């Protein structure tokens, strides 16, 4: 366990915060505080260099223009890359997920080189935008054998993401589209976790939040937050009921 407060870097919240993903920082900070562990959220606005010394790095979703600007800013200085290489924990959502890969469709769909921290590539397939509730069953072998409950969230992305051999899938899609290839959702590579889940992801999936935190601080006692369990129950059963009524969102490419 670190001897000082856990430092959570919220990267480019002014660019990659379109879908409330800054909430992931709030969730991590609170879940540590509720266990008596100090945490500090470090917003890294665009135009400032990414500190290398944080324990956790968060990237959220954003529009195309913001995504490309965020990439430029995050690449400059190389702070995020060096932190990831020394094993810092990274959670990247949606546009942030795409940025960490080898390439993604940038402004106007232009093929754009990413930060190359994840062995994934995001492409436009001509399939329609993936919008709606997303349910996926985590793949324990990708997570060091840790079993998480069903992942729930809301996806909203145009591109589809294909995993290369170094990246492991985070979960298998049961409702929605996710990566759009092989019915998989998200990616895990070392201590980098990437996903299309908004909600925010960690608000609706506390086990994933705690997994990331345990990677930083070691064992943590369980928390039982009644509001969160109620929300999870509601969202999971609602998404499943929708599938039974007829698949709203066609399968990905």
């Amino acid at each position, binding site marked *: 366990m670190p001897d000082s407060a856990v430092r959570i870097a919220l990267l480019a919240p002014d660019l990659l915060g379109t*879908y409330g993903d800054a909430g992931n920082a709030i969730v991590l900070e609170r879940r540590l505080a509720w266990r008596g562990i100090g945490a500090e959220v470090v917003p890294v606005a665009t135009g400032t260099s990414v500190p290398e010394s944080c324990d956790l790095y968060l990237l959220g979703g954003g529009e195309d223009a913001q995504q490309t600007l965020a990439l430029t800013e995050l690449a400059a200085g190389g702070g995020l890359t060096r932190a990831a290489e020394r094993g810092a924990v990274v959670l990247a959502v949606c546009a942030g997920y795409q940025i960490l890969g080898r390439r993604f469709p940038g402004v106007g769909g232009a093929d754009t080189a990413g930060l190359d921290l994840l062995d994934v590539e995001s492409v436009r397939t001509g399939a329609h935008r993936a919008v709606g509730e997303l349910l996926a069953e985590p793949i324990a072998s990708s997570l060091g054998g840790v079993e998480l409950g069903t992942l729930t969230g809301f996806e909203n992305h145009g591109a589809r993401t294909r995993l290369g051999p170094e990246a492991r899938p985070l979960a298998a899609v049961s409702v929605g589209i996710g990566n759009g290839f092989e019915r998989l959702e998200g990616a895990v590579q070392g201590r980098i976790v990437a996903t299309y889940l908004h909600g925010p992801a960690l608000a609706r999936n506390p086990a994933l939040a705690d997994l990331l935190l345990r990677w930083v601080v070691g064992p943590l006692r369980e928390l039982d937050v009644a509001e969160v369990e109620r929300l999870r129950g509601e969202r999971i059963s609602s998404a499943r009921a929708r599938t039974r009524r007829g698949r709203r969102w066609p399968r990905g490419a």
Partner: protein
Amino acid sequence: MSLRLRAAVTVGRAARALSRATGRGGGNVVGGHLALAIEPRALELLARGHPSVVVSGTNGKTTTTRMLLRAAELLGPAVCNTDGANLPRGLVSVLMDRDLDPRARLVAEVDERWVPSVIGDCRPGLVVLLNLSRDQLDRMEEVRTTAARWRDGLSASAAASTVVVANADDPIVAAAVPEDRTVVWVGAGLRWRDDAAACPWCASRIAWDDSWRCSGCGRARPALDWWLEGDELAGRDGTRTRLTPAVPGRHNLANAAMAVAAAVRLGVATDAAAAAVATVEEVAGRYQAAWGPGHGGRVYLAKNPAGWTETLDVLDEERRPVVLAFNANGPDGRDPSWLYDVAFERLAGRRVTVTGERAADLAVRLRYAGVDHDVIVPLAAALERGRAQDADVVASYTAFGQVRKALARA
């Protein structure tokens, strides 16, 4: 009037009357919808001869439209669409009224996505652009796409003589205005800046102080024709006019400024416009007294992060208990992630009741914000509690309609 248009109007009116008679609603949507199904050019044909003004933006368009209507009425007959029927079908419904004055000016509230289409049909003399920020991201476009759409609409020949009244404090709005248009720039302020971090022209970072300037291409806030200084509207001509909107909050001062600037461009004297704007007390139930006279609690509509931020500012003034009614249906946006963009921490220490179809989502947000609250899912029971507390009520879009209905029944 062509046979087809006559048939469209006849059927549309009948459907509207039937909808009203059966208590299903105002009937503007179904009436206008049917008329357009019969005559797709109905809006263009019916709008002929009517001078028009288009008002659009993410937040404040209903209120600003109503304010501008009051001021425009000083010049002659004027009509506007109500009940948020802000697509072409809602405008068709207004224009197919049997007793519509043939010279009436149409003051049209228009959904952001429909601005180019309505410009094409109505050829407005004036277009008023308020702000653009994230809203219903699961079904609306990203804000820059909407801005580009506005720009296309204003560049079209139908807008050749259109004057634009635009909020200069919103860079996304500024980018939506073609350079060759006559523009009245209003410094109406921009409380929510999280969608304007990247320059809409070159995607570099925008630097903010009282104004804005792009650190890349150097584009900056245009020179202002009108700006707010406290509650006074200052004009480039040296005039200063106190604005006294009856509806609360900084954002309504901004709406009033936009409405007055637009009215002056139409030919209304500044003082008269300010007085007319101040007569708008309640707009489609927004800001209405929740529990009747003698009680302080009001009903607020908050649709998106920018709207919630403004509403929290207003709630801070009296710090009443609050009832929060939250849904996530189509018009609310089906992804409520944006609740985490709103500083609900500000409600800590107040009595908070959460209700609505998606109360569970808001309850989790409040838990993480450290705000104690009770969840009472049935709306009637939650409102009963609110009445006992003389609380303020804040509702998302579809919850707002449910709250109004429930309060009318109570």
